[in-house]
């Protein structure tokens, strides 16, 4: 079984008449709120400082998104 990821992929149809160089893989986000259901009690928390910079108190929801010009983009 493949490792779980919140980034899913689809492969658009490529026509020989597409004018731009084809992007063969399109990635989309599927963050944790789509899987979790009703949040159970006592889930693992970030420290307050970490929480602020993560944008969430609970680790399970942390799902950072990076731009084209940023480090971290590769893993997306």
């Amino acid at each position, binding site marked *: 079984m493949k490792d779980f990821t919140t980034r899913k992929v689809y492969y658009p149809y490529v026509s020989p008449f597409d004018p731009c160089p084809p992007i063969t893989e399109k990635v989309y986000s599927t963050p944790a709120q789509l899987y979790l259901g*009703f*949040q159970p*009690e*006592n889930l693992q928390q970030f420290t*307050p*400082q970490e*929480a*602020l910079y993560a944008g*969430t*108190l*609970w680790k399970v929801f942390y799902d950072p998104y990076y731009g084209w010009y940023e480090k971290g983009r590769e893993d997306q």
Partner: protein
Amino acid sequence: MSKKQLPNEFYTMMEELQTVDFVLVELTLYLDTHPNDYDAINQFNEYSHTRQTLKIKFEELFGPLQQYGNSYSGYPWNWDDPPWPWQI
């Protein structure tokens, strides 16, 4: 002419306040859908206490955070002293 700039301590204390307040925002939304989570309510009340202490300390140095009487005023009236949050 430039106005007096804020000391580094302002930014440090502001970040401390933002940190504690963020935990409280998160716990508030969580408790809105989990009203019976005893541990989370204890955590909420602890942070609520910390937040009140921090607010008093911050306001002594940098003036009121809220008004309409939710904070004390200095003399002269210092609520509308700059900078405002978007200016810092």
